[in-house]
């Protein structure tokens, strides 16, 4: 650590909702401790550094960069490469950077169909000249450019080398704090590790009582009032707990909301959606193919259900174009 002995810390947001920034602010008074041990040298959400300031930093200038958000545009990708170069440790912070998250569900579509829907077809669109974003525009004053919107959302790790992955949508603040402490003390696990989470599944942290599951009918969350003592999955509500890494403290199931899977796959699971699909299939109470088909055919939107947070990181990454 150079100069004043303080850590040089950067934070960035790419394609994300801003929730990860809120999660950092949720550290509350601990932010003052962060301020004591670290100099923030880049944080577009809260400070006034410009890209050109970052470009002027020597390579490896930042000790740690917490990068949230997926790679949706050429600007996101450019910053991913730039921040990689300028940081000693690059952390994929939150589900978007780690595995694509909700913005990644746009991988069911492509640029053209998204633009068509958003700029031409949507009920609120008032666009008589049918204008859709162009990357370059000629004006009398010269040419202006905006970043290119990609066909496919990617994770940070798919465009550059990442040192650590911190899951969650958003990551829970005690977990963020634990990671910051580990960084400050230099007590970091091997490169490539998932940090700020557990090695077991959400079910391991969940208080609901599990019995043998036999499901004749799956319910969507709004179709049933869940018994708050029994396992939600046992009641026919698809819960991603068995296919999701713990670390959140089973916050959602605590209030009888099924786990959606935001902490990503547990260790050794390659594809979170396939793992959840297998878990769902295993509880189907059917003795014939026809009955099994009838029971599962009521599950709407399989990709949105099984890969809600992990489509870009999944084996197939996106729907076919």
């Amino acid at each position: 650590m150079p100069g004043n002995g303080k850590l040089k810390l950067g934070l960035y947001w790419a394609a994300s909702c801003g929730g990860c920034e809120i999660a950092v602010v949720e550290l509350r008074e601990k932010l003052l401790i962060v301020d004591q041990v670290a100099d923030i040298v880049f944080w577009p959400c809260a400070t006034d550094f410009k890209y050109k300031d970052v470009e002027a930093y020597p390579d490896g200038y930042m000790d740690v960069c917490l990068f949230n958000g997926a790679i949706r545009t050429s600007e996101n990708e450019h910053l991913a490469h730039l921040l990689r170069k300028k940081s000693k440790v690059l952390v994929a912070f939150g589900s978007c950077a780690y595995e694509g998250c909700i913005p990644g569900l746009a991988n069911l579509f492509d640029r053209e169909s998204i633009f068509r829907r958003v700029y031409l077809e949507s009920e609120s669109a008032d666009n008589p000249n049918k204008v859709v974003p162009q990357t370059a525009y000629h004006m009398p004053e010269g040419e202006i450019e905006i970043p290119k919107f990609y066909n496919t959302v990617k994770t940070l790790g798919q465009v550059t080398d990442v040192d650590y992955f911190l899951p969650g949508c958003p990551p829970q603040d005690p977990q963020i704090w634990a990671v910051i402490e580990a960084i400050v003390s230099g007590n970091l696990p091997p490169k490539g590790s998932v940090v700020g989470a557990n090695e077991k599944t959400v079910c391991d942290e969940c208080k609901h009582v599990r019995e043998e599951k036999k499901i004749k009918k799956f319910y969507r969350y709004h179709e049933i009032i869940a018994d708050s003592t029994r396992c939600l999955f046992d009641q026919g509500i698809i819960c991603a707990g068995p296919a999701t890494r713990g670390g959140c403290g089973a916050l959602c199931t605590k209030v009888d909301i099924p786990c959606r899977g935001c902490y990503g796959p547990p260790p050794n699971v390659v594809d979170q959606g396939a793992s959840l699909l297998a878990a769902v299939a295993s509880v189907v109470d059917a003795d014939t193919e026809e009955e099994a088909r009838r029971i599962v055919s009521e599950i709407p939107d399989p990709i949105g259900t099984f890969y809600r947070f992990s489509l870009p990181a999944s084996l197939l990454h996106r729907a076919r174009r």
Partner: protein
Amino acid sequence: MSNNGKFEPRIVAFLCNWCTYTAADTAGVSRMKQPPNVDIIRVMCTGRIDPVFVLKAFAEGADGVIISGCHPPGDCHYTNGNYKTFRRMPLVEMLLQQYGIEPGRFHWGWISGAEAPKWAELTREFTEQVRKLGPLNWKKQFASKED
């Protein structure tokens, strides 16, 4: 696989050791006519076939996938492995469809050890079906350079 630039489908078949693999073996030994497009992966029971196997096959370049094992209810040598299969695979079909993979690229079903001609026929018909659908080439879907 390509033959003088002509598309040759690459098909991955996961077969259980006790029924369909035996049928495939018999079909081979009996010199029944089969296309060379089907690569067989033998598993002990279809119940071992994690849905991720199917996705991985497509992701890594398969144009079609076959799963076949022992007839339900009673033929599975592990009692209910084939039950696991018929509970899983309808969901896998739904998933593949949403990914944009045509139903004709995925077949699952049952062929007993005594049904070697049925296996040979399946390989012929399925290969032609996939040939008509053309190459899937999933890796190209996710090329690293964005247009």
